[in-house]
């Protein structure tokens, strides 16, 4: 594209120059010396300005390319910085607890050569807590590796209504215990979609799980599917839960962002889901207001372009 622009720009100037030169030659022939001199002057000037102009445009493009690259790089670094601090904080809390439990264990062991039954209970409790916190760290690192690994999608044709229904049934048993209804509104003749079924199942489960958490008790989760323009399929997950505030909406797909109390949930679910949907050539978006529930929409192409990143 750039070469063409370069070529087109030059073409303009060269033709202007040639025309002027032609005019000069014609005038010379008619022996209008003054006009001839003027035409020659114009020709000379246009050459010079052409070179100068083209050089300046090139330099500007070069600078813009540099700036673009720097911007992308600094955005990447900022993203990495945010991610790293998220990780550090998530891991630091369990570490602090582990450190403290070991201090307590030391303390208990200092007092008696043989721990009293109460001290024995305490010791066991502390050790159990350490195991729990180590597991918590393990979950975080595993989810992180999962997040970073970026599994390449393996494309198969899938019946999305069935795929979603399977996951809905998995969620339903627990949901009904909390009086949460799951309503289905599937488009009957939904076209089969070329996608990665297990990856998509992960996303669907994640959204259903979040919806169930948001509703807590006595509410509804509505799942609907429909075909929409441009050979796309829309999957909509609506819940009557607590909703998401405006400030949180911007960050909802960020890694480690979570509104759950400390220690519950790593905050990676939605960011992993977002990554998966992007890799499947689709889009995921959310609309929500506090107190009015949330609606997550997934758009997927029926036939994604092969070699999609």
């Amino acid at each position, binding site marked *: 594209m750039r070469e063409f622009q370069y070529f087109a720009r030059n073409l303009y100037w060269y033709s202007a120059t040639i025309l002027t030169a032609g005019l000069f030659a014609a005038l010379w022939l008619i022996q209008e010396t003054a006009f001839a001199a003027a035409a020659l002057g114009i020709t000379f000037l246009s050459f010079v300005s052409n070179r100068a102009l083209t050089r300046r445009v090139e330099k500007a493009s070069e600078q813009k390319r540099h700036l673009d690259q720097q911007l992308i790089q600094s955005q990447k670094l900022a993203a990495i910085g945010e991610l790293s*601090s998220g990780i*550090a*904080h998530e891991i*630091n*809390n369990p*570490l*602090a*607890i*582990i*450190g*403290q*439990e070991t*201090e*307590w264990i030391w*303390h208990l062991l200092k007092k008696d050569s043989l721990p009293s039954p109460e001290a024995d209970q*305490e010791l066991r409790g*502390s050790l159990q*807590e350490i195991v729990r916190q180590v597991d918590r760290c393990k979950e975080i690192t595993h989810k992180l590796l999962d997040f970073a690994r970026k599994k390449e999608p393996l494309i198969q044709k899938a019946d999305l209504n069935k795929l979603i229904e399977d996951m809905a049934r998995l969620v339903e048993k627990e949901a009904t215990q909390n009086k949460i209804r799951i309503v289905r509104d599937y488009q009957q003749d939904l076209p089969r979609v070329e996608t990665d079924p297990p990856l998509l199942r992960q996303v669907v489960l994640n959204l259903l799980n979040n919806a169930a958490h948001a509703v807590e008790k006595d509410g509804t989760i509505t799942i609907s599917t429909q075909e929409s323009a441009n050979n796309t399929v829309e999957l909509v997950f609506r819940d009557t839960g607590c909703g998401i505030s405006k400030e949180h909406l911007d960050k909802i797909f960020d890694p480690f962002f979570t*509104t759950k*109390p*400390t*220690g519950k949930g790593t905050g990676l679910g939605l960011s992993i889901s977002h990554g998966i949907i992007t890799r499947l050539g689709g889009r995921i978006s959310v609309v929500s207001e506090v107190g009015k529930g949330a609606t997550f929409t997934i758009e997927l192409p029926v036939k994604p372009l092969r070699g999609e990143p």
Partner: protein
Amino acid sequence: MPSSAKVLIVDDEERFRITLRKLLTANGLETNAVGSGREAIEELKQQPYDVILLDVKMPEMDGIEALAELKKISKNVEVIILTGHASVDVAVEIMRLGGYEYLLKPCPMDELLAKIESAYERKTARDERLRKAEATPTNPSS
């Protein structure tokens, strides 16, 4: 170890504050624990504390905000901030708001105990000065 120091732990991780409370109590300190900045403010209104251990990152109200509020309630209470990360900006902010110091989490017990002790010393010194100032009769400007 001046065992009369009264300490309040403020941290959103339940297990953390439970075990810390056990450890501090075992070292002779009268200790209570709450799970949020708001609860800490309510608690401080109810009874006096000498030293408050305040976690900097908590949902709803963060540590720095809580520090400002707590100092309003009790000017002399010493607040030690517990943070997973140290930065110059945060340190300056803590000083500005009247915090005692910050400590990095995870923190070894002996370091924590030493800090609590020196904070308590500063508080008792300030309390003394305040008491003396109040005891001195002031000349009414009539």
